[in-house]
C-alpha cells in the first residue's frame, strides 16, 4: 500500500517536473523560429556588407563579406553616404522628443483631470466624454489627419491662423507657413547640437492633442481614489487650494503617474507613425528618430547590413532606456510601500 502510494507520488512528481516545459513548448518553438532566430541572424548580418544582391542566397552568397565592425563604425562616425546624418544628433533629438512630450502631457493631463474633478462643475460628463476622444482614435489616423492639417497651402492650421490674424490683427492676407519644409529653427539654440525646426513644433502640437487625454484618464482614476476627508482636514487647517494641490494631490498621484509617464516616454521614443507620416524625418533629417532612420535604411536605401547594425544599436539604446525607467518605477514602488 505504502509502496503504491510512494510510486504514484514519484510519478506525479516527475510529471510535474516536465509539465511546465510542455506548457512552454509551443510558444518557445514558434518564437525560436520567428523571433529568436531572426534576432541572432540580425546580429550576424550586422557584421556583413549585406545588400540587395544577396537577397536570394542570403548568407550563402559567394560575394558576401564579413567586414567586422565597419557598419557600426560608419554609423557612429557619420561615415555613411547619407546626407545630413549624424547618429548622435539623431539620438539627442530622439531623447529630447520623448522627454519634451512627456513633460507636457503629464502636467496637462493632471491639471485637466483636477479641473474636471472640481465638485459642482457643470457639464462634467460631457467634458469627460469629449476629452476621451483622442485616446479612442487610432494614432495612425491621428497622424495622417494632422499631416493634412499642417499642409502648407490647404491645411486647416494655416487657415485657422489666417482667420485669427484677420479677426484680431485686421490682416486678411492668407498665411502660408511651410511647417515641414522650413529648415530655419524658430528658436535658435533651444536644444544645443540638434536644432529644432518648425516640423518639430508641428508634431509636438499633434502629439499633444493625442497624448494628454491618456494621462488625464489615468489621473482621473487616481484622483477618485484619494479620500475626500484629506482635503476637508487640510482646508480646516487653513490650507489654500494651491497648497492642497501640492500637498495632497501631487504626492498621491505620483504612484499612478510615474508608470504612465514611463509608458508615455517609451511610446513617444519609438513613435514611428507620427514622424514618418508628418515630417518623414525632415527637413534635412532634423526630426529623424532612430526608428524612422532604421526604416529608411531598410526600405529606401536597402543597406541591410547597415540596417541590421543600426537595429542592434537601437536595441542597446532601448535596453539603457528600459534600465533607467525601470529604476524610476522601482523607486516609486518603494516610495509607495514606505
Amino acid at each position: 500500500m505504502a509502496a503504491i502510494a510512494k510510486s504514484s507520488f514519484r510519478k506525479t512528481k516527475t510529471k510535474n517536473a516536465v509539465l511546465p516545459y510542455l506548457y512552454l513548448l509551443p510558444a518557445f518553438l514558434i518564437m525560436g523560429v520567428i523571433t529568436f532566430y531572426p534576432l541572432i541572424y540580425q546580429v550576424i548580418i550586422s557584421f556583413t556588407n549585406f545588400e540587395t544582391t544577396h537577397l536570394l542566397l542570403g548568407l550563402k552568397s559567394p560575394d558576401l563579406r564579413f567586414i567586422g565592425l565597419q557598419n557600426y563604425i560608419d554609423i557612429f562616425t557619420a561615415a555613411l553616404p547619407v546626407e545630413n546624418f549624424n547618429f548622435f544628433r539623431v539620438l539627442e533629438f530622439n531623447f529630447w522628443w520623448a522627454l519634451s512630450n512627456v513633460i507636457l502631457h503629464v502636467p496637462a493631463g493632471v491639471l485637466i483631470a483636477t479641473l474636471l474633478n472640481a465638485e459642482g462643475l457643470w457639464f462634467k460628463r460631457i467634458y469627460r466624454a469629449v476629452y476621451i476622444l483622442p485616446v479612442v482614435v487610432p494614432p495612425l489616423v491621428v497622424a495622417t489627419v494632422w499631416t493634412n492639417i499642417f499642409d502648407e497651402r490647404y491645411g486647416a492650421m494655416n487657415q485657422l491662423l489666417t482667420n485669427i490674424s484677420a479677426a484680431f490683427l485686421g490682416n486678411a492676407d492668407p498665411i502660408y507657413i511651410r511647417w515641414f519644409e522650413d529648415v530655419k529653427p524658430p528658436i535658435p539654440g533651444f536644444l544645443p547640437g540638434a536644432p529644432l525646426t518648425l516640423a518639430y513644433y508641428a508634431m509636438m502640437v499633434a502629439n499633444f492633442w493625442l497624448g494628454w487625454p491618456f494621462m488625464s484618464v489615468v489621473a482621473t482614476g487616481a484622483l477618485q481614489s484619494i479620500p475626500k476627508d484629506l482635503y476637508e482636514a487640510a482646508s480646516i487647517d487653513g490650507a489654500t487650494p494651491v497648497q492642497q494641490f501640492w500637498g495632497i494631490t501631487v504626492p498621491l498621484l505620483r504612484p499612478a503617474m510615474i508608470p504612465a509617464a514611463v509608458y508615455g516616454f517609451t511610446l513617444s521614443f519609438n513613435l514611428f507613425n507620427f514622424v514618418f507620416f508628418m515630417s518623414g524625418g525632415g527637413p534635412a533629417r532634423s526630426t529623424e528618430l532612430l526608428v524612422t532612420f532604421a526604416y529608411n535604411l531598410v526600405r529606401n536605401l536597402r543597406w541591410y547590413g547597415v540596417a541590421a547594425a543600426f537595429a542592434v544599436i537601437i536595441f542597446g539604446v532601448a535596453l539603457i532606456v528600459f534600465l533607467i525607467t525601470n529604476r524610476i518605477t522601482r523607486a516609486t514602488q518603494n516610495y509607495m510601500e514606505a
Partner: protein
Amino acid sequence: MAVNPQSTKNMFVRIMNINTSGQTAGRSLPLWKQLVFQLIALIILASVMFPIMYIVTLSFSSITTRPSKLELFPKEISFVAYRQVLDRPTGNPVTFIELLRNSFMLSMGVGAAALVIAVTAAYAFSRFKFKMREVLMILVFIPLLMPAVGLSTPLYLLLNQVQVKECKSGETAILPFTECSDGGKGKLQFNLRDSLLGVGIAMTASALPFAVWNLKGYLDTIPRELEEAAAIDGADANQTFWQIVIPLAVPQLAVTFFLGFIGHWQEFVLTWLFLSQPKDYTLAMTLYNMTGQYANSIPWNRFAAMAVIVALPVAIVYIGLQKQIVGGLTTGGVKG
C-alpha cells in the same frame, strides 16, 4: 482606477468614470470660479474637437477640390466621398472589401495566433516553479525591448528566402528547401515576404512575447484558492488549467486579443515594407497613400472619409474596453 461597484450601470457611464450616485452635494463652486472653469473647459473642448470636426466636415462634403478655407461644421451631409471610397478606394485595381478583408485577416489572425500560442506559456510562468524559469522569462522579455522596425530587417531577409518557383521542367521548387533540378531560375509564383501570410508571421514575432507577458501579468492576479481546491479534489494540472484557469481568464484573453487587434489594425511599418502588390494592401496603407505628398492627387473629402472609416472599428473596440485597456497598459508598461 476607482472600482465602480454598480456593474449594472450602462456601459458609457462606467467607461467615463462618471459619478452618477448624485453625491455632488457638499461644497459647490462659487459662481465666478464656475465661469472661469467653464471657460477653460470649453477652450479645451474646442481644441479636442478641432481636428475631429474638421475631418468629419470634410468627409461629408461633396467638394472634390482641396479645401481653400477652414470649415468646422458640415454645410451639407453628402455621402459622395464615402460612396467613392467604398466603390474604388485608390487608383489601384483593388476593392474596398479586399482592403477591409486584408486588414481584418491580419489584425485578427495575429491577435488570435499570438493569444493561442501564448496562453500555456503564460500559465507556466505564472504558476510553476522550474529550473531556468528566470532565464526563459528574460528571453521572452528581450524581444519586447526591440521596436517593430528593429526586427524588420532580418524578418524581411529570412521570409524573402522562402519562395515557390515553377521550374522550366514543370516541377515546382520550394526555396530554400528544394531547388529546380536544372539549377535554372524558374518563374516566381509565391514569395512569403510579399504575402499577407508572411507579414502575419512577422507581426506575430513581436506580438507573441507581448501576449505572454501580458497574460502572465493577469494570471498572477487570479487567486490560487480555486486551483488548490481543484487539486485537493483530485484534478491534475491539465484539468485545472482547462477547466478552472481558462474560464477565469476569459476577460483578459479578450482584452489581449483586442489589444492585438487594435495594434495590428493600424500596423504600417511591416506591411509597407513587405507588401508590394496592391491586392494585399491594408486600409492603413491605403490611408497613407492618400496623405501628405500623395494628397495632391486624392480629393480630400475622400481622404477624410477613409480616415473616419479606418478609425471607427478601433474606436468602437476602445470605447467598449477602455477601462481594461488603460489599466492593462499602465501595469503592462511597468512590467515592459
